[in-house]
């Protein structure tokens, strides 16, 4: 493989200013083998994250101790291909799942927690259980009632609103795998909606994005979530009218989730 030129050190130093793939070096006009395979590796991780299936059975058993009532649901998108091509199907429950929730006739609750695979199975497998346990712990301290925990296959963000409505929850909180980038394939997002119901739009939700090892920590994410939930209940809304006003730093957002 190509020898390291003199300038390699310079580019190494310049990388403190940017994560962009600068100073990769070249062989002819092409990439050195290391840089080429590093890209292939990052893309492979992102692709696997999109196409992997969450082991929801394993997730359910891991969460059983903390969540006595767990329901497994499906969206109307029957597989990954239809999920990717038909965003509308991923936003609505499969008829069977909808019936399942209707038959439940559950008592009203303050919060309905939902987990959906979204675009990264890895994000859910890695972060959903520890984060949910932390959130559950903090919510119980407040004495807020919880609807059954729902785990949704092939779900998009808005499916949480239909679930929250059927579970008669004041607020729905959905944890979902975000679209993998080349640098991070396991980023998790949280969305919350006050008075969830079908047909709510993006402007009526709040988002806590970028939860992963190098991004927002579980503790910070859960702290922000609790703050937003408290404000949402007080002001009876979520969305553009509700902002993180704890300090002036704005939260990173990921508008490209869907």
């Amino acid at each position: 493989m190509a020898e390291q030129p003199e300038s390699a050190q310079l580019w190494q130093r310049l990388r403190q200013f940017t994560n962009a793939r600068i100073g990769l070096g070249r062989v002819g006009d092409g990439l050195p083998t290391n840089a080429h395979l590093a890209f292939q590796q990052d893309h492979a991780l992102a692709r696997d994250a999109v196409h992997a299936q969450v082991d929801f059975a394993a997730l359910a058993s891991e969460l059983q101790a903390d969540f006595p009532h767990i329901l497994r649901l499906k969206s109307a998108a029957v597989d990954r291909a239809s999920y990717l091509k038909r965003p509308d199907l991923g936003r609505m429950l499969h008829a069977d799942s909808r019936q399942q929730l209707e038959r439940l006739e559950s008592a009203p609750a303050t919060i309905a927690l939902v987990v959906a695979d979204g675009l990264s199975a890895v994000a859910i497998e890695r972060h959903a259980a520890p984060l949910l346990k932390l959130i559950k712990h903090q919510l119980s301290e407040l004495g807020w009632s919880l609807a059954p925990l729902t785990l949704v296959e092939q779900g998009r963000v808005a499916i949480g609103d239909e679930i929250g409505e059927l579970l008669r929850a004041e607020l729905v909180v959905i944890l979902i795998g975000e679209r993998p980038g080349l640098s991070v394939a396991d980023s998790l997002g949280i969305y919350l909606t006050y008075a969830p119901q079908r047909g709510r739009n993006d402007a009526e939700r709040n988002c806590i994005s970028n939860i992963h090892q190098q991004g927002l920590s579980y503790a910070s994410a859960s702290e922000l979530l609790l703050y937003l939930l408290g404000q949402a209940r007080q002001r009876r809304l979520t969305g553009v009218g509700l902002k993180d006003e704890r300090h002036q730093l704005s939260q990173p957002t990921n508008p490209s989730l869907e």
Partner: protein
Amino acid sequence: MTSYQHTIRQNRYQFDSLKTLLAKATPERSGDDLAGLSAANAEERVAAQWCLADLPLTTFLNEVVVPYEEDEVTRLIIDSHDQLAFAPIRHLTVGGLREWLLDYRTDSQQLAAVAAGITPEMAAAVAKIMRNQDLIAVAKKCQVITRFRNTLGLVGRFSSRLQPNHPTDDPQGIAAAIFDGLLYGCGDAVIGINPATDSPQAMTSLLHLIDELRQRYAMPVQSCVLAHVTTALQVIERGAPVDLVFQSIAGTEAANRSFGIDLALLNEANQAARSLQRGTVGNNVMYFETGQGSALSANAHHGVDQQTCEARAYAVARAFEPLLVNTVVGFIGPEYLYDGKQITRAALEDHFCAKLLGLPMGCDACYTNHAEADQNDIDNLLVLLASAGCTYVMGVPGADDIMLNYQSTSYHDIRFVQTTLGLRPAPEFEAWLQQLGVVDQAGLLIANERHRLLQSAAQLGGL
């Protein structure tokens, strides 16, 4: 409204409007499926294509796909249609136009002469009955030349936008990526930054950053910060060094409104940037981006298929004599263009239609991680586009845009295609690269560990 029909074996297919016919004749793509506009099966699609091929071009002047009264883009298309330019092809059908375009006798000059007589819908229609090779062959014959500080679109030239984006607009991170790109001979189309923050302050400081570099090295290039057109107007008023004004545009008035623009605003921006007279060899000052699916995603497509909507965006673009236009073909996601095959087809259609309509068309050949595509698809597309005479593509460090989170073409990719197909950057820029010792007379990169640009990069952050 006329009804259109065609029979294959015993199956009679009927299409109740021009826009339905156009949609059903469109090669398969996920966005038209999502909109519920596609042909039900391959037979219906080809029936629509037969029917479309028999359609006289004059039909497009009598039946519009979006109502004239409701849409200023339709009004622009109809009101600016040039009957004189149209005369040589007036008698043709869509199928006849395809053959006329491919004919040896139809050369660059004739294509340029009829451009103002071709409406976006005519261009879209003929594209639908053309193979990929037809789209390449005809686009290659179209010559569109634009100028600001260099000359873009000449035969044998292939330019690039240097795209040094950074998720927090860090000036040193951006400058490092610019030096890197220049050392690969990229950036003659524009040094263009997508800002992380769309504010007058952010835009102004980034503009100064590029402008200082440009002047320090006497580079024959233009800069652009791709903020909203209204932000550009604000900073022009405050005296910022604006070379090009950028805006995303679409093919319907409603979709443009969702972008916060209309034709009057674009006209105002064009006049404002022209008045600065910053160009040295010409004064084309607008930079537009487009992409199939934008009208549908804004729910502003009026039941028109996404390729036809896209072609209508070129009517908007050509009203302002832009320096640069490019489709951002795979950015929007798999629900509009599902895989490498659909992305490739759309890129070739967009490039062809825009060139036919007289635009300096480039392409952001790109994909997201949830599309069924990879860098090999982009390599293939790059070779096809360069063969078709595409004006420019993107140069992103390592093809990985860390701000917009998608993959495009890299500095290396531009070098690859230039070397492989024997193409050169814009002449003024090439001369500058040779003078600075970046490339040799043959256009190959010169290895120089002590290059002036490298030494300048070493100064960043007081290192």
